[in-house]
């Protein structure tokens, strides 16, 4: 995933606005990163560099922390957030097959976003509707008993919607 020039500039500027709110102790690292993610929706490399310079640590130290915790995203969220449930029931009903289908069709891995920024893929723990396993939640809407064919169908309908939206502009 390549960041656009616009994204790089924005992430640097927004991070610079956040930094002065903190005294610059090493212990401020996680609160700063959380604030950055709150603002940008993810923690891009330029932001990590700014944070590292501010705290006087290496960018690698920041990267270590960002990759350690699941709460931090490295890529921007897509317009549509696809959450594949990997809870116990969904796992037993082939949740990993569904996750693989999404990965294959979108050509991205978990935690990534498609190059057109339309879809981002995440795995989640139980979403609380195990009778409908395996489920995929797209922008808060639960899709029950998903099959690989259903993945294709959902993507097809999204493709139509995107085309329509594109027509309006």
């Amino acid at each position, binding site marked *: 995933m390549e960041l656009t020039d616009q994204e790089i500039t924005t992430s640097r500027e927004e991070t610079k606005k956040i930094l002065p709110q903190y005294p610059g102790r090493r212990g401020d690292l996680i609160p700063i990163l959380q604030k950055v993610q709150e603002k940008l929706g993810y923690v891009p490399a330029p932001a990590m560099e700014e944070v590292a310079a501010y705290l006087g640590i290496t960018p*690698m*130290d920041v*990267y270590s922390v960002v990759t*350690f915790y699941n709460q931090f995203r490295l890529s921007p969220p897509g317009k549509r957030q696809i959450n594949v449930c990997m809870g116990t029931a969904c796992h037993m009903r082939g949740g990993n097959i569904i996750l693989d289908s999404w990965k294959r069709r979108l050509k991205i891995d978990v935690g990534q976003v498609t190059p057109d920024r339309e879809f981002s893929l995440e795995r989640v723990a139980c979403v609380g509707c195990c009778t409908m396993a395996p489920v995929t939640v797209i922008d808060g809407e639960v899709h029950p008993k998903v099959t690989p064919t259903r993945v294709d169908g959902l993507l097809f309908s999204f493709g139509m919607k995107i085309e329509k939206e594109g027509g309006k502009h």
Partner: protein
Amino acid sequence: MSGEVTLTIDGREITVREGEKLLWAALDNGIYIPHLCADRKEEKPDAACRLCFVEIEGRPQPVTACSEPVAAGMVVNTRSERVDRLAGTAFELLLSSHRLDCGKCAANRSCALQKIARERKFKLKVTRLRTLDRNLPVDDSSPVVTYDPNKCVLCGHCVRACRRQGGGVLGFAGRGFERRVTTFGGASLAAAGCSGCGACAAACPVGALTAKNVRLPNAGAKR
């Protein structure tokens, strides 16, 4: 303040500096304890490799020698059924995600894993566990070192060496099975601003980071 302390390790009386860690007390007196992640220069040991377990009389459980300061009159045994079992399991877990290619490996004969296997009569083979070959790409971009993450045992020696000498280009990323030694953003060494000091290759106890065109100056064996 800095007095000396006398303790017994494997039936031998040993006098060392007060506050010294058990592992170094033993190693300096020619008593071997398996170890990978221990670093004398660090104040706080990681105690991550779980190989240096010893029995201390009066303690209910084995302890890691790298994190245990010596005490006067302490009686230590470096071998027991429990200790060998703990170290053996930790060793096999390490091997299960280490690409075994000793014959072609640059660290052959100077490898810390080979030494541990020899000393403790462990097999250099994974028998009880499933092996995990992550098949990560080898980084050949630096003119000085080659990095094969598939052989990394995550001891952290290279990370510390890089921090002291090479500007802190290397570090840990990820968690669990995904944990690996890498650079900022996962870039290649050449792209990450590696100064080429080679400290990481000198520090690597196995064949993960190796100096190019030169055999490792028996990095692991001496430590």
